[in-house]
């Protein structure tokens, strides 16, 4: 019935707007990765919608030649929920940051994850407020000096993946801005997932928080600092995959062990099971330098999406209550006739 669709290219995905992030911003790499990815997805361009709040990352929709809505601070998940309720066929991506998604919009992010609205939610985490010129954010490490914390920040940071799992998200993953090869299949998987997919992307802000992720972004350290997750495989890392993550059953804590030392064998290493929520929670808590930080899908356990249930319920009501009829509605209940 439909004419064969001509395959889209990166060029088709780029809008005519000049990209205005600072030189060297991690957002460029993410934008490029997504512009390359979108034509690979089996989605007509007119069904692609990018929705954002406020912040550097939230300028993203202007650069995608798709439908887009740059909304207000923190509210993208709520606006996107309305879009999906109106038209569940649309392929909706929410672009947010650590301030937008976890500070002013924390409540909306919590509830959109809990409800499991079928969205891809990409949180660019640069641990700083960029657009408002460098104040510390809810993911900034303790001691972050910024215009609003000249003596160092004192409040504990939030861990986005821990937050997402706690909120009831059913797809939680992490990647790194410049790691296109890692991020591309990860985003494909997030897109495949029905329901809310939450992806935290470590993103470098070269102006206000430069190098904050160097410990994990640096290729030389990658083998030691990253725990590359693969469902069904033992969680090993290190230059020769000689290290691994083991569960200490007595303390119910994860620990780093070396295979071949102290009688440790590959059998002792935890095998990643992305459907295991308890494991996902423990993984989300792993933080360098004591641990390698998990990269990949921490948790994936699909369930019916919110909007699908909404429409199913409506269908059921329609089957039982008959066709909608305004005149019948107006004449419902007790009526009487005056002659």
């Amino acid at each position, binding site marked *: 019935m439909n004419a064969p669709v001509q395959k889209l290219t990166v060029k088709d995905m780029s809008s005519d707007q000049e990209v205005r992030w600072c030189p060297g911003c991690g957002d460029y790499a993410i934008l490029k990765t997504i512009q390359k990815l979108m034509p690979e997805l089996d989605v007509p361009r*007119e069904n692609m919608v990018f929705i954002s709040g*406020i912040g550097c990352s939230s300028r993203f929709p202007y650069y995608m030649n798709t439908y887009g809505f740059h909304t207000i601070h923190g509210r993208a998940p*709520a*606006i996107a929920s*309305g*879009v999906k309720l*109106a038209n569940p066929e649309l392929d909706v991506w929410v672009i947010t940051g650590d301030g937008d998604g976890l500070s002013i919009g924390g409540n909306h992010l919590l509830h959109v994850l809990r409800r499991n609205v079928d969205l891809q939610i990409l949180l660019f985490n640069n641990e700083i407020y960029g657009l408002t010129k460098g104040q510390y954010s809810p993911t900034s490490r303790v001691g972050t000096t910024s215009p609003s914390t000249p003596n160092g920040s004192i409040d504990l940071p939030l861990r986005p993946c821990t937050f997402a799992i706690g909120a009831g998200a059913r797809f939680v993953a992490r990647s790194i801005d410049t790691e296109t090869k890692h991020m591309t299949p990860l985003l494909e998987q997030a897109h495949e997932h029905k329901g809310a997919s939450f992806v935290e992307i470590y993103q470098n802000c070269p102006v206000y928080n430069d190098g904050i992720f160097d410990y994990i972004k640096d290729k030389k350290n990658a083998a030691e600092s990253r725990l590359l997750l693969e469902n069904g495989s033992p969680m090993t890392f290190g230059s020769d995959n000689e290290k691994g993550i083991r569960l200490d059953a007595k303390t119910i804590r994860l620990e780093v062990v070396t295979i071949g030392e102290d009688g440790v064998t590959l059998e002792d290493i935890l095998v990643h099971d992305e459907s295991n929520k308890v494991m996902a929670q423990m993984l989300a808590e792993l933080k360098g330098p004591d641990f390698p930080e998990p990269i990949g899908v921490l948790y994936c356990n699909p369930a019916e999406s919110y909007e699908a249930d909404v429409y199913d319920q409506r269908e059921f009501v329609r089957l039982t209550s008959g066709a909608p009829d305004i005149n019948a509605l107006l004449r419902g209940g007790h009526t009487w006739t005056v002659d």
Partner: protein
Amino acid sequence: MSVLEDLASTPTQSNVVCDVVVRFAGDSGDGMQLTGNNFTEATAIYGNDLATFPDFPAEIRAPAGATFGVSAFQIYFGSEDVTTAGDDVDVLVAMNPAALITNVGDLVNGGLVVVDEGAFTAKNLVKAGYESNPLEDGSLDAYRLMSIDIGKQVLEAVKPFGLSHKFALRCKNMWTLGLVMWLFERSRDSTVEGLQKKFAAKPEIADANVAALNAGHAYAETAELPSGIEVYKVPRAEVTPGLYRNITGTEALSYGLLAGGQLASLPIVFASYPITPASGLLHTLSGQKQFDLVTFQAEDEIAAACAAIGASFAGSLGVTSSSGPGISLKGEAISLACATELPLIIVNTQRGGPSTGLPTKTEQSDLNQALFGRHADTSLPVIASSTCADCFDVAIEAVRIATTFTTPVIILSDGYVANASEPWCVPDFNDYEPFPVKFATDPEGFSPANRNPETLARVWAKPGTPGLEHRIGGIEKNYETGDISYDAENHQKMTDVRKSKIDSIAKFIPEQTVDQGNETGELVVVGWGSTYGAIHQGVKRCREEGMDVSHIHVRYMWPLPINLEALLKGFEKVLVPEMNMGQFVDVIRSQFLIDAQRLNKVSGQPFKIREIESEIKAQLESQS
């Protein structure tokens, strides 16, 4: 003109009166709202014109016997047009001393008071603040008193059904209803039917309630009542022929939104967050899923507004609803809808404020907020519903304006209109003219900034349409392309066009009419919203006394009707009664440079007819 005057002595010796006000008052757990609603239904079926005023406390179950926990339901019915819930009470039903002490002041001299004598215990008297028992100390001598131990009567009546003491006593309200129904010759059929439906799963409860209802009725019929207490006859009202039902403002507004959606050929996404007294809309619409409607209880007011905006972006009609404090939270999102020029409907069921204020009481609190309560220049249309039934047409009108002009529209209702009910001559939906929305589909020459040259509405292109991919957002946009623009001249131009679009809506709304009286003269009383009934009656009475006074009731609060200024300038004096400190009068003064006078009331209670009447007289006297 109040009541209980014998118009004629009939062979049955019944009192024939032209109108009556009955108020049921009791603890908030006594079921007074239910009693009132049943009596209302029976009265409507009987053929009287009527208006009701439910007045309940914010506490769901206040401590029994406390004055602040008194819940009341007032109904005014009669044989002539009834537009308010009435001023003075002719019949007061008081289920305990607290209900008596808080309501007896409104009872007319010679009025009937029915009390549950069993509830007048020493403890309850103290709780209500009585030093001595009013049933015994002569303080009720000005009234006709029916003092009955209702609890005892009820326990006797429901004995055969084996209910516990507690459940048996819950039938007290039905017993009392039966008694009042006898007083006015109302049929118990609709109540019996309702009880059987409500308690279908618990037939013993249904039977007990019906037995109590019948027992109350029989008691009144057979007991030797004190002299002067007998059946009241209220002749049927002369009303326009047609099919009638009772409708609350909340129901009418819900149905109007659904009707508007159909007329616009649009699905509706209704996103809301619970708040008194606005939640009724969410409840009513949530039960209408057979229509092209999705309802969404969001996590907060902001999310509700945003979800509605998202829905409108995606090609549905987004509707959100709240009361004053919740509308404040939605303010930033409403400005986004103004900036992106998307259709959106915001319903504000106003309540007493500021802050939590008086959540269950009525006030025209938020006209200023509707007109001015956002950041920057965000003019938007505001329309107000004046009666319960009017909510239906107001909702349709809001949908028409929002979709024709791609703009947010605020509907102002209030706690009084939302909760009260009135008989409604049900319209035929086929008589309404459709106004189907035309979405953009042609990529040729498409820009998200395109406007309809006549209405200035921005083009509405929904995601899913091939070739129309575009971005919108809160940043200022270029007038031609819709791309983001920080250009100085462009911002001026965009601000101007957004304002002109709203201002020019005045050309597309009906001209203001005069509700009553001449189009020029000595005095015009200008109202808006739910003060309609009191102003209507007040002006009517003054006109019957020969005074030169007219009534204008404004529905389109912004932009104002094109002829309103000229109309008002045809009167020597303009009086604006409002249930606030003068929000509309200030608009009239500033827009038209007219020396309009104010009459303000912020007690959480609607105007009484006589308050309007006496101010009209004062205005006319001060002139001569």
